[in-house]
């Protein structure tokens, strides 16, 4: 899916380090993640956070991902990407506990 010609396999240690980093960042960013989720829950009243997040995320995907791939096209489709983005945010929101790293790892491995 990435817009890159390098096809290096990631090592187990690197994979775990990335997950730890993501879990720690999710802990730090939880108030923002929650605010975005809440904005989607009550989109009519507070649409700002969700719209800004979605626009920026789509911008990043089209910048760094291979937009010819069908998966990426599906992510960029505004009619169906809400569900995928909510799932990504929920995955991060559920892993902010002390053993959040293990939870995130289990979720990613069973995906």
């Amino acid at each position: 899916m990435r817009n890159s010609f390098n096809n290096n396999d990631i090592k187990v240690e690197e994979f775990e380090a990335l997950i730890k980093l993501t879990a720690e960042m999710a802990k730090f960013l939880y108030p923002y993640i929650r605010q975005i989720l809440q904005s989607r829950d009550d989109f009519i009243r507070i649409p700002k956070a969700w719209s800004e997040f979605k626009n920026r995320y789509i911008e990043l995907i089209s910048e760094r991902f291979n937009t010819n791939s069908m998966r990426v096209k599906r992510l960029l489709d505004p009619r169906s990407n809400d569900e995928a983005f909510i799932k990504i945010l929920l995955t991060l929101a559920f892993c902010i506990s002390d053993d959040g790293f293990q939870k995130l790892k289990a979720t990613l491995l069973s995906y």
Partner: protein
Amino acid sequence: MLQNKFLFNQSSVTLEIVGLPDYSNNEDEDNISIISQWKLMIIDKPPIEGNIDHLKTIIRAFYCYSNSLLNNEIALFESNLIDIKPENYYSHILLLKSTKPEVKPLSIKIGNSVLADIINCFDQLGSSNKVKNIYSKEFKSLNNKKFLFLLDKKNILNFLLPPLVSICSIFLISTVFIYVYDNNDNRSLSNNKNKLISINHINKIL
């Protein structure tokens, strides 16, 4: 005897645990091993409370439901105390059934943000050193309910149709090839055989 009380907060949700330490195990006075009362308070929603068995069922319900939400399974949890089902992809409905016969089930609608807060409150409770004996073995081996997706008729069709269509198409194509190539192959084989026999004859004569 004074009871201990702990609060686990996460944004819009507070989980209150009241109970006593287990003095027979020489535990600290500050700990809780015997939970006598608990209350889950969500802002703008009625509080949910009950005994230790109810708490275990509710924790299990939320963990099962959140797992199935993330794993692309049918997000649904049903038990005799609590049902959780999605209304759409950003709101969920909790149906709390009372054990008392006269009391009607209570329906509470929550969003994804509140669901995340509730899960984080339960995570805090699980990792707390002060409250013990909540997480038994049952939470460590949550069943993988991947078979649930077969309950939906659409999914059964989606699951069975592709292999059936592929088997039928392979069968059809192979029968067509049998009719087209069978004779030609036989002819060429018999020709080759005849040639070989004639070469053998010539060799013998020579």
